[in-house]
C-alpha cells in the first residue's frame, strides 16, 4: 500500500467515531471575529455530555490550573480556543484509545504533563497548547490500529520479534509513520499549524517547517515519559534524541533534576485522574 492509498483511507475513516457535529458549527462561529468566549461557551454547554468531558480534561493535572475551572467560557479564556477545539475534536478518539489501549492513553497523558512542565519553564506564551500537542502526538497510532488493523498487528508483531522500534516497523511495512498519519488527521480537522507540525514531526522536530521549539518540547517529552517508564508507547524502549532539538530546549543537570521530580509528582496526581475515569467508565 502506498502513501496515496493510505491518505485515501484516512480521508474516509469509518471505524473511528465521527467528529461531533458541534465542531463545524464552532468553526463557523470562530470565523466571526465578533464572537466572544461567553457566546462560544454557551453553544458548547448545550451539550451536557461534551461539557462534562471537557471540564474534566481542562481540570486534569496535566494542565495544572490551581483553581477549578467550572464553565466552558472560563476554559476558553484560560486555555484558548485552539486547545478547547482540539479537546472536543479528539474526545471521541480518546475514548477509543482508553478502551483499546490504556498504555497508550497513559503515555499520551504523561507526555502532555511533561510538555506542560517544560513549556512553562521556557516561558512559552500558551503552554496549554504545547500540553495539548503532547496529548495528541500519537493519535496516528490509534488511527493505524483502527483503520489498518492487519497491518498494525503485523507491525507490532515484527517490532516485538525483532526487538525494534515501532516507528521503524511502520515505515518498513506501510511506508508512513504514525507521526505523518497524525499530521494528516490534524490537518483534516483544521487544527492550527502550531499543533499540526509538532504532531507530524515529533520524531524529527528539526525538520518541522515552523514551530520547531514546540516540536522539540513534544519530542523530548515523548522521550522523557518513556524514560521514567510511565504508560506504554508501543515498544518498551527510550527512542533516540534529536540533538538539534535538544540544543534548542536544553536543560542543565539541576533543571533536569527538578523536572524529573515535578513530573513524578504530577504523574501521581494523574494516576488519580485516570483511576477516576476508570471508575466512572
Amino acid at each position: 500500500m502506498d502513501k496515496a492509498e493510505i491518505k485515501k483511507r484516512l480521508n474516509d475513516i469509518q471505524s473511528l467515531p465521527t467528529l461531533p457535529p458541534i465542531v463545524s458549527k464552532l468553526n463557523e462561529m470562530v470565523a466571526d471575529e465578533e464572537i466572544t468566549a461567553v457566546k462560544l461557551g454557551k453553544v458548547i454547554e448545550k451539550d451536557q455530555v461534551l461539557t462534562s468531558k471537557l471540564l474534566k480534561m481542562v481540570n486534569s493535572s496535566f494542565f495544572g490550573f490551581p483553581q477549578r475551572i467550572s464553565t466552558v467560557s472560563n476554559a476558553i479564556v484560560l486555555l484558548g480556543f485552539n486547545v478547547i477545539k482540539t479537546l472536543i475534536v479528539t474526545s471521541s478518539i480518546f475514548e477509543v484509545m482508553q478502551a483499546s489501549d490504556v498504555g497508550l492513553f497513559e503515555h499520551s497523558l504523561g507526555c502532555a504533563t511533561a510538555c506542560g512542565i517544560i513549556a512553562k519553564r521556557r516561558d512559552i506564551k500558551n503552554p496549554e497548547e504545547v500540553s495539548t500537542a503532547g496529548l495528541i502526538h500519537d493519535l496516528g497510532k490509534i488511527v493505524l490500529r483502527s483503520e489498518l488493523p492487519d497491518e498494525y498487528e503485523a507491525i507490532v508483531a515484527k517490532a516485538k520479534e525483532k526487538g525494534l522500534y515501532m516507528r521503524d516497523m511502520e515505515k518498513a511495512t506501510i511506508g508512513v509513520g504514525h507521526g505523518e498519519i497524525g499530521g494528516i488527521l490534524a490537518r483534516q480537522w483544521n487544527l492550527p499549524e502550531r499543533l499540526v507540525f509538532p504532531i507530524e514531526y515529533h520524531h524529527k522536530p528539526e525538520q518541522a517547517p515552523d514551530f520547531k521549539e514546540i516540536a522539540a518540547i513534544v519530542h523530548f517529552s515523548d522521550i522523557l515519559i518513556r524514560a521514567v517508564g510511565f504508560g506504554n508507547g508501543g515498544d518498551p524502549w527510550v527512542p533516540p534524541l534529536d540533538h538539534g532539538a535538544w540544543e534548542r530546549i536544553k536543560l542543565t543537570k539541576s533543571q533536569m533534576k527538578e523536572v524529573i521530580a515535578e513530573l513524578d509528582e504530577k504523574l501521581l496526581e494523574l494516576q488519580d485522574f485516570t483511576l477516576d475515569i476508570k471508575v466512572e467508565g
Partner: protein
Amino acid sequence: MQRIPIKLAKAGMVLAKDAVTPEGQVLCGAGTSLSEELIARLKRQGVLVISVQGHPVRLPGEMVLSEKLKELDRRFSKVKDDPVLRALKHLIGEHLVIEEKGEEFLEKLKKGS
C-alpha cells in the same frame, strides 16, 4: 515520599504533603503524624489518597528498587551511546533511590562507591 490510597494508611506514618479532599480542601498539613483517629477522620471527609514520607507500602505489582533500576537500564538499552540520554538515565536512577531511601542514603552510596 509515597502516595498511597487512604485505605492503606497506618498510624505512625507521617504526611509528606497536605492531606486534601478531592475538592481541594486542605484538612491537615505536611509533617503531621497520623493517628488512628486522624485516619478515620480523613476517610470520613472524603480523602482518597495521601502522600507519606519514605516508602512504607509496597503496592500490588510494584517493583522493589533493584528491579526498578534494572528496568530503567533495559528501557535505555538502545540509546546507551547518547551522552545526553545517559545523563538523563543517571538522574532518573538517582531520583528513584531518593524517593525510596532518602537523600542521605544516596549521599552515602556516592561516597561508598
